[in-house]
């Protein structure tokens, strides 16, 4: 057999991790070179090195305001996803409800729910965390509902009839079949919701929020052309968002070893 057909483990690792790393470094280098080479003014686009300088001068402050925003994102995420799961479970029991709800939930994918932020500000107070939490909850509710409902209804008629043939009651069918079958769909929803929640919280803060939060800071610094400060906060928002997503991916591997192993 040809040796090239089976790349070693080292080679596999290199392909999975090293190549994206190289891309990242190349983009940063290109960015730096363009800013310096074309003499782009600071207020338009700061160089990565300049952003890093500001970031390094106040990391504790940046992560503190990051955590303020993240705690709102997380609260909204927990509320939205929990409600989505519960309503999906209720929809499985009473299918009429699903007929009424699911089309709207699918349509809501196309609705920019962050656009409702100013209205939530009026209802719940523009600077209070509640309005941010509400925006995130609404944003994450619909994709969770749709995905989990699909997951809960994914078992084939044969798989359900198998349990019926053992005279299994509905709740046993739910816990032994529907729920585990829905887990891949649930984690898909949680991954989508994790990204959405950080976006939702930051954007909602543009319309008002706690003084020391990412959205408010980015908006006010950008307003006075402190672009390095704004960018450094964006970097923090990205780090938090990616970390949140990664935690869910790790949880997925932990909860569904059968599923992740199969994908590899």
């Amino acid at each position, binding site marked *: 057999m040809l040796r090239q057909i089976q790349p070693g483990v080292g080679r596999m690792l290199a392909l999975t991790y090293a190549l994206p790393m190289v891309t990242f470094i190349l983009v940063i280098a290109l960015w730096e070179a363009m800013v310096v080479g074309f003499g782009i003014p600071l207020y338009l686009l700061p160089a990565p090195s300049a952003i890093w300088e500001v970031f390094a001068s106040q990391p504790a402050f940046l992560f503190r305001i990051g955590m303020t925003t993240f705690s709102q994102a997380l609260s909204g995420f927990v509320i939205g996803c929990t409600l989505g799961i519960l309503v999906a479970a209720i929809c499985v029991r009473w299918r009429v409800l699903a007929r009424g709800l699911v089309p709207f939930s699918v349509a809501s994918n196309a609705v920019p729910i962050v656009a409702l932020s100013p209205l939530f500000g009026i209802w719940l107070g523009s600077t209070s965390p509640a309005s941010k939490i509400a925006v995130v909850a609404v944003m994450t509710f619909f994709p969770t509902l749709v995905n989990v409902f699909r997951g809960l209804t994914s078992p*084939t008629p*044969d*798989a359900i*009839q*198998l*349990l*019926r*043939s*053992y*005279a*299994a009651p509905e709740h*046993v069918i739910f816990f*032994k*079949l529907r729920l*585990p*079958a829905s*887990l891949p769909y649930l984690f898909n929803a949680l991954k989508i919701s994790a990204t959405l929640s950080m976006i939702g919280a930051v954007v909602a803060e543009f319309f008002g929020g706690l003084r020391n939060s990412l959205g408010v800071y980015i908006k006010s610094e950008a307003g006075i052309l402190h672009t390095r400060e704004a960018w450094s906060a964006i970097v923090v928002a990205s780090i938090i968002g990616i970390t949140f997503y990664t935690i869910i991916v790790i949880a997925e591997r932990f909860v*569904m070893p*059968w*599923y992740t*192993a*199969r994908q590899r």
Partner: protein
Amino acid sequence: MITPGYEAPTLAPSAPAAATDSAVIVEQVSKMYQSNAGPVTALHEVSLTIGRGEFIALIGPSGCGKSTLMRLIGDLDQVTKGSITVKGKTPRQARIDREYGIVFQSPVLYDWRTVRKNVELPLEVMGHPANERRDRARAMLQTVGLRDFENAFPWQLSGGMQQRVAIARALVFEPSILMMDEPFGALDEMTRERLQAELLKVWGGSESDTTVVFVTHSISEAVFLSDRVVVMSPRPGRIETVIPIDLPRPRNKKTREMPGFFHLITQVRDSLRES
């Protein structure tokens, strides 16, 4: 026990000796479905008595209602007219009493369960303690030759192995009636013949107490496995004829070479043509 004045039919060695020894009695059963084009008759006045420990094959072209008949017996669907008695009970009561083991065409294994946990599923639903479940599942896996794969996940097995797990799962709680809906239909010819022989071994041959209702498209499969082949015909679904298979048991590779085997295959084929 033999009812006085009742002569046991001399169809096959293991044909029902008397009505009291019947596992399943189907009387004048009709099944209608509603479709967009109006009501469709899936089964029309079908009657059949299956003896305890008998292996029955239901064969016929698509739309002859063979799967429907199996599902009606197993209470996965309800009759429109007529009645079905299973071990002296209604199919519903028989299902509640866990009389049925079912194997479908696809193995329907649960992805998130290991092979052993899949086999344990019915015992779990029925509330057996964990150590008993494990022991019985292991014993069953031993019987189907998959003891070494107990901790594998279903997707790591071949199609034939997956179907063996499904058979182990159907038999692990020792149901009195085993229903199989084209269980080997999706397998290649070699695997298929091997699994047929294994099924007969697991079932226990002529001494078995387990009644089998086996739905199939394959004539040779029906003849090789069963005590009686029930030939069905479509539009509306009905029983054309019942052919006793008097080939000796235990059946094995040699059975497939017997002149009687070919003769019976021809007989079943001819009655399928007439239908």
